[in-house]
């Protein structure tokens, strides 16, 4: 069932650049072969806290962009919110320091072979993996409408050059400090109806993904969601990051978001199941 990302390797990644952008840090890391292997939706797992750290688990970050530089290796870019101890440590790294990194990990967004009309929906730093995806979709001739939401303006991550590849860009904020006042899900129906969207890609908090799935169901659209569960290992060995997922055989299994995800078919995820095992789950 599981789809181990066979390209994953461990490397010592050097910080090439680390800049504060709004509420986030935009970090560039030199990572050798990982850049060439990365696909939109993949993530990396980074050891945090340094030599005498009390933080024993890796932290997961979506790959924002990857640039393969041939024999010179390559770089990946991350967008990191200084949230807790681990991400604060990471955003405090200076140029030339190195971090221990494993990647690329997890599944990536599926790319349609035909030009289709897509909506890309990102919440907070969840916008990060969508820009690389937008470029690829655009190159395939897809229409790309992007919707980015956050609690307030500073938490929207939308670089200027990121807008190149999108046909439209809608911003929503919970407090109305930028773009539309409200949630991304509220903006979505209108865009779908106006553009006849066929496919939704999303990345953000679970509650947002769940709300998007309801809309996808309503309009009968395919929804590829990048699911963010709390992860201990990122490589599939700990079983902490699971969500109930209906398999192609119809059976619900507690599936690892680090291996069977983070990108999952939203229609198959049993949403809002934190705290309980849905009835009918295999083995439950």
């Amino acid at each position, binding site marked *: 069932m599981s789809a*181990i990302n066979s390209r994953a390797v*461990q490397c010592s990644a050097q910080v090439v650049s680390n800049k504060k952008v709004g509420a986030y840090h935009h970090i560039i890391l030199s990572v050798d072969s990982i850049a060439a292997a990365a696909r939109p939706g993949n993530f990396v797992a980074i050891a945090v806290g340094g030599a005498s750290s009390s933080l024993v688990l890796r932290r997961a970050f979506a790959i924002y962009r990857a640039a393969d530089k041939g024999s010179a290796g390559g770089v990946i870019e991350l967008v990191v919110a200084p949230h807790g101890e681990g991400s604060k440590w990471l955003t405090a790294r200076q140029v030339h320091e190195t971090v221990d990194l494993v990647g690329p990990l997890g599944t990536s967004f599926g790319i349609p072979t035909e030009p289709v009309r897509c909506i890309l929906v990102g919440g907070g730093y969840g916008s990060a993996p969508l820009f690389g995806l937008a470029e690829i979709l655009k190159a395939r001739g897809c229409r790309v409408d992007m919707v980015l939401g956050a609690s307030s303006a500073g938490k929207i991550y939308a670089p200027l050059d990121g807008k190149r590849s999108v046909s439209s860009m809608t911003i929503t904020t919970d407090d109305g400090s930028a773009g539309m006042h409200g949630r991304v899900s509220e903006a979505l129906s209108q865009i779908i109806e106006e553009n006849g969207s066929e496919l939704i890609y999303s990345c953000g908090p679970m509650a947002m993904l769940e709300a998007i799935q309801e809309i996808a169901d309503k309009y009968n659209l395919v929804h590829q969601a990048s699911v963010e569960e*709390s992860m201990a290992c990122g490589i599939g060995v700990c079983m902490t990051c699971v969500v109930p997922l209906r398999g192609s055989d119809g059976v619900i299994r507690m599936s690892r978001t680090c291996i069977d995800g983070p990108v999952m078919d939203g229609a198959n995820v049993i949403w809002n199941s934190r705290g309980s095992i849905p009835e009918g789950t295999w083995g439950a």
Partner: protein
Amino acid sequence: MFNYSTSLGSTVLPNPIVTASGCAGSGKELSQFFPLTELGAIVTKSIMLKPRSGRATPRMAETPSGMLNSIGLQGPGIDSFLENDIPWLQSQSARIIVSIAGESVEDYASLARRVRNIPNVVGIEVNISCPNVENRGMVFSCQPDTARAAIENVRRNIGGEVPIFAKLSPDVTDIVAIAREVVNAGADGLALINTVLGMVIDVNTMRPKLAQKTGGLSGPAIRPIAVRAIYQVRAALPKIPIIGMGGVASGKDALELVLAGASAISVGTATFGNPTAVMKIKQELESLLTERGFDNFVDAVGFAHRMESL
């Protein structure tokens, strides 16, 4: 030439570094980072009779130098395990220690019958640190009588083919007493220690962070407890081989457990922080032992007890 091999009862392993049950997936996930033959053995996650979806999420909370988990023994059940996981591990030429877990004394007997005489299986770890559904969910290894009953049932169903190791919980008043009990019941060796019962409260929701409320504490935080348990049991039962575990993240950590009395070292939580932790530990432990003048790994086992024997 340093001789890194170790003996666990009738089993000889080329080196003493093994994975910890439940911390190495099905083996496939790690084999991406190093060949499984590099391990002394792979210890599989505890398998039960039936498929099990485990506990609800959140299942994990990080703690200072450690973590809590309440995975709840998610797994495919013994049939699928024997059909899928074992053949794949055999195809990799991995040495396998199968971990089994039951909800009743009878479960252990049934599981033991299923894991007899399997090629490449070099040992059975009997995880008796799980709740006994027939006895108000009391953990088997926390009571001498249920600990004994579980092990007796495994022993009766496994001849001398492979050694069996009873895996004990540290959450007891007297771990030596439990160790004696399971050895008398027929365990060839012991696996020390399983996780320590703990809880984290989420200060935002103001409720226990794990859906299951309590979970098992692992990682470097518990290493002093592991070293103590291994040392105490080794002092009381010096002839019984011990698979030691609990917070080993470096060769130095492994050496502590070896000196205390462990003949093999399981690495669990450290793998989550570093997929190649076992390989690093294997190399570092070898260096430390050779620096200290040991020619044979086995001479270091229990070396911290040498005072007593004078």
